[in-house]
């Protein structure tokens, strides 16, 4: 198996103005993620995990440093380019699912594809395929309020994969789920990674962190430990 870096963050910093002074949430952090890896970023609240995820997903811009994803420098993109990158380059999964409540599960999955101008028939077919992949093939026409938390998170994962992103970013994906549903979610992420999806998750969930191939520990905006639990070659 050829291992290539899909994500490379070099000396990134993110400072916020707070009460008249500048506070750094991420302080000169560097991280490389190889294609096919599953990295869990763990650490105490306020250590900069979510800020890091926002920077990696071009939701936020670093005040210093460089982020290259799939060969593209995303740290200095303008709004339109960053938006396009978020649409096709990365997939987001949020702790609170954040599905559009007025759309069905299938329509939620179709939303990024519609934005990417994929023809209606093709996006409909892919939405069904993705919903079947996450185990929701019978729930395509259900609205979010008709789905359980675990099912909503599965729809959110299907939505994140809609435009075949190079990287899946998940912010506390099991944070709103009970233990059993959380375990199902971990199994789904494991299957996704096994099928080739590169994943970066931010989590407090010890079981989720244990399932990842690599665990990165953060504290005060920097990486303090980086443990590879299952090398790529081990499952290649």
């Amino acid at each position, binding site marked *: 198996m050829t291992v290539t870096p899909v994500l490379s963050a070099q000396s990134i910093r993110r400072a916020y103005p707070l009460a008249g002074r500048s506070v750094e949430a991420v302080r000169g952090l560097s991280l490389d993620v190889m294609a096919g890896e599953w990295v869990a970023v763990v650490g105490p609240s306020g250590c900069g995990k979510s800020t890091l995820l926002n920077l990696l997903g071009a939701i*936020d811009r670093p005040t210093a440093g460089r982020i290259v994803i799939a060969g593209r420098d995303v740290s200095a993109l303008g709004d339109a380019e960053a938006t396009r990158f978020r649409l096709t380059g990365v997939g987001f999964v949020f702790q609170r699912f954040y599905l559009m409540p007025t759309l069905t599960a299938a329509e939620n999955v179709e939303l990024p594809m519609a934005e990417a101008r994929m023809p209606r028939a093709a996006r409909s077919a892919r939405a069904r395929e993705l919903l079947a992949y996450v185990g929701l093939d019978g729930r395509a026409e259900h609205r979010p309020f008709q789905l359980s938390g675990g099912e909503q998170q599965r729809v959110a994962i299907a939505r994140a994969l809609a435009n075949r992103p190079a990287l899946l970013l998940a912010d506390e994906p099991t944070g709103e789920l009970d233990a059993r549903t959380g375990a199902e979610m971990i199994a789904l992420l494991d299957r996704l990674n096994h099928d080739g999806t590169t994943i970066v998750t931010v989590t407090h969930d010890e079981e989720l962190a244990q399932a990842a191939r690599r665990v990165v520990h953060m504290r005060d905006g920097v990486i303090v430990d980086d443990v590879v639990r299952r090398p790529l070659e081990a499952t290649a």
Partner: protein
Amino acid sequence: MIARLAIAALTRRRARTALTVAGVAVAAAMLLDMVMLGSGMRESFRGFIDQQGFQLRLTPRGTMPFDSEATVGGATALVATLRADPDIVRVGPVLGGKHFVAVDTGVVAGFLLGIDPAAQGDYRLEAGHDLAAADEIVVSTAWLAATGRALGDTVRVAGGYDPQLRRATGERTLRIVGQGRFQMLAASDRAAAVPLATAQAMGGADRADRVSVLLVETRGAADAEAVAARIEASEARLTALSTEAALKFVDERLGYFRQLAFILASVSLAVGFLLVTTLVTVSVNERIGEIAVMRAIGVARARIVSQIVLEGVALSLAGATLGLGLGLVTARWLNGILATFPGLPAAFDFFRFEPGAAFRALGLLVCCGIAAGVWPAWRAATLPIATTLREEAVA
């Protein structure tokens, strides 16, 4: 998908959306009514004038038609002179006055018009036949009701009444040959028309060979204003009023009405704008997290703006459509009330539906809907995604 999201956002809180649409509909109805009122009376007046088919009205110098009891003498010669003018096709002399008919309960008074049946524009025959002899009379429906007479009856009609002597003057025996609708008079007016010579004779020596107004139809290619100027220059006793001059005069008199209509129409527009802005802003604030997520997953700013502006447009369109119907119903109702004002012609419209003006006004309201959505849309599209998501998560 964006249209689907916009409609879904509006139907999410149906009662609130319905109330806003109702509010916009009321504003649209008022806007439409004010536009109709602004042009209705003028166009209604133009309709009356055009219906008569005469381009000029010649009156005693310094007066308006039937504004006073002033008359012009030497009518026969005057009419002959005018008819000789190559730019004039028809001349309709009219002598206005009063008439009296004795009934069992007393005396019925009404308007009497002395006209030339071949050149008149004062009434439209609804039953019977037109005047053909000196002893014939055409009367209004209200006249027949007040006198208890019917078509074909013979009636004694006086041109004057001396209350001290309790004696009618200028009495004639006339046969009722026609029932007409007197276009410049109210439906309740007791009006009658007789041949000009008969009316002059009934008025006694004071009215011999005199007329109140001369209606003039100019030749198609002739410039009515130029003909009017020429007549005024050659006949110092007359004021020549063209249709356009008459409309200008009416415009001046209706100026306050139009100003009021303009102010109320502007208020309606502002109310519609504020209603839509308020609803869209509240709706966007409720969905700020969803919008941040849409931005996070790659939905472009332009698409967010389109969706929210579309919501404003949908609200305005729905309100404008309902308002169109509501405005027409209200205008009809108000017209019915105002038409009962004494002295107004029965067919006079205060509110006249002019499709062009109405759709321009409602189009303006829809534009207001677009403008109303722009600010909340831009605010939503430019929100900081990471901060908004964090705040939503905390909330």
